[in-house]
């Protein structure tokens, strides 16, 4: 009885879903595939750079992070905040406490505060305990200043996109003239690495030497600056990456030894059982 009912229900579901398949297959076969401009021109991130933090032994290159931070401060921070990263965390990049205090004090944007005398809303210079502020107090202000586009906070950008750092590097160096059949709306810019091809952000890195690196660093070409800021944003998104890798290896080695020992004791215990039976 259960089985007859079961067969009927099974045939019913299978019939309905195969009916759906029939309609779907008919449509698929008869409707010519329409290829959108996105499908035709969108590009996956390039992998022409190998970052030092990739792979199970990856570590950040402190010099590169400092250069990337410089690019962020001089170029990106004009529009983008880094609201999840505190100035104090910049010690990780190799800056001294005094340097971090100076960076916070000279930051181009201020943080919200109140006037201690009147209680009115005001702003003050950041201190190392503050998170890195962007230029806009709220979303409305950001959109008003950017032709209704919203410059996203960059704190997690390197983890919030597929292949994060490679995506950022590809995007920053990916601006080009659009193909003839793509119409770029007014105020947008063609970039095949961006999801819908047209990005509101104008090319941020436009000329070699736009940022002046300290002596002893590689020449600040557009490609170099882009790599550096991509690496910096990876640090901003995952500041514990090195610590994570460093913890991982001893733990794996410990577990491997423990597993081998567990296997040997398992074999030993069962071996005794088999011996006992063989002699019985």
């Amino acid at each position: 009885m259960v089985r007859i009912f079961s067969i009927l229900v099974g045939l019913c579901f299978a019939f309905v879903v195969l009916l759906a398949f029939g309609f779907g297959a008919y449509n698929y076969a008869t409707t010519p595939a329409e290829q959108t401009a996105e499908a035709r021109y969108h590009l996956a991130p390039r992998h022409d750079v190998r970052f030092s933090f990739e792979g199970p032994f990856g570590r950040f290159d402190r010099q590169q992070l400092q250069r990337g931070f410089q690019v962020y401060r001089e170029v990106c921070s004009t529009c983008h905040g880094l609201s999840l990263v505190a100035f104090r965390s910049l010690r990780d990049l190799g800056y001294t406490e005094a340097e971090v205090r100076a960076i916070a004090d000279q930051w181009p944007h201020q943080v919200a505060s109140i006037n201690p005398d009147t209680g009115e809303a005001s702003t003050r210079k950041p201190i190392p305990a503050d998170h890195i502020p962007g230029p806009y107090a709220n979303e409305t202000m950001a959109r008003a200043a950017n032709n209704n586009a919203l410059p996203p906070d960059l704190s997690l950008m390197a983890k919030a996109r597929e292949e994060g750092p490679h995506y950022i590097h590809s995007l920053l160096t990916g601006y080009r003239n659009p193909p003839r059949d793509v119409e770029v709306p007014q105020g947008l810019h063609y970039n095949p690495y961006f999801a819908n091809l047209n990005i509101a952000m104008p090319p941020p890195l436009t000329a070699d030497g736009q940022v002046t690196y300290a002596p002893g660093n590689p020449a600040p070409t557009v490609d170099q600056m882009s790599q550096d800021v991509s690496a910096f944003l990876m640090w901003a998104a995952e500041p514990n990456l090195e610590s994570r890798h460093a913890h991982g290896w001893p733990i794996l080695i410990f577990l491997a030894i423990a597993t081998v020992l567990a296997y040997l004791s398992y074999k030993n215990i069962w071996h005794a059982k088999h011996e006992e039976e063989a002699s019985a």
Partner: protein
Amino acid sequence: MSFPWAEEYKPKHPFMRWMDEKLPLPRLVWGAVGGGYPVPRNLNYMWNFGVLAGLALTLQIVTGIIMAMHYQPGEATAFNSVEHIMRDVNQGWFLRYAHANGASMFFIVTYLHIFRGLYYGSYKAPREMVWMLGLVIFLLMMATAFMGYVLPWGQMSFWGAKVITGLFGAIPVVGDPIQHWLLGGYAPDQPTLTRFFSLHYLLPFVIAGVIVLHIWALHIPGSNNPTGVDVKSPQDTVPFHPYYTAKDGVGIGLFFLVFAVLIFFMPNAFGHPVNYVQANPLSTPAHIVPEWYFWPFYAILRAFTVDFILPAKLWGVLAMFGSILLLFFLPWIDKSPVRSGRYRPTFRIFFVILVVDVAVLGYCGGSPAEEPYVMISQIATAYYFLHFLVILPLLSMFEKTLPLPNSIAESVLGSGKAGEAAPASAA
């Protein structure tokens, strides 16, 4: 408990004797996972996953309780408090990655545990209750995991909650009120977050309770084994401890090795990048997908694209819930007297097709709702239902099974050996 030759608990130390009189907790442990539980001697490594699922639950509870000390279930605070755990809490990144990947590990071992049961016929009499309690645990796990994924309040958290609770909206008449009741409003918002947090904290303890029932029900007939043949004599069993505690030690070691690789070297492999963007009700992500462990069911849901008497969406919801609920009836659908797939040559072929089918469903469920994925998932969905509801009942009527060994001991030691050894142990 289960067999007359189960070794009785005899405390040696005076303290343990005193304890046994007042509160026989050591006796309970002895009978449950100690020397007092006789287990078939031929269990293979597929029998490790029950213990591993229990371990995964324990790890989730421990990491989860610590994270709950730092998490703030607020619409404006949830996302940032998760990042606070990642950045400012000592070893917080480890806790969060262990908890997020721990959910994946929990589902991996649970799926292997379920497929083990399907292949070796562990759902059949006399273990129907064990099987059904296991399915209750599975449903509770899915609810817990779904609500947990909403808590970081990323884009996929928000839109996942919206889509999944929206499924209840497909139910006629009462659908909309149910959806609003689940969410505490018309869309995921502050009330959703606080109630999901509360339930996400509660349900793991409910799961722990049902696990106690699952193991209790298991101890009455005792564990199944790869031959599917009943235990007949002391020859067929070994005490759980030390024989299977030692074997579980190996499984636990391998479990932690895989887990450590995930946590320390690929912590975001199972996650979706969009969930690192804070929830925004005004911006829909391009592709809304649940976590990987829901993909097969998500594919079944989306496979129904045609209105036939009922609306397509309702068919999808019925099929999705039906695909799990039908498993409750499995002990009565598959009446083949032979339990183990080892002795069911035709069943074995269909079983392999089912495994591939579920993997294909999973792949399609994780892909965008476009052709050819929809067509593939439609074929795969049809097979899923045909397998359980049509093929299994027919097989149990017509399949020619292979001869079974006389006993577990015979299948391990060979027929001559078992006959020789039996009197020796009886003596």
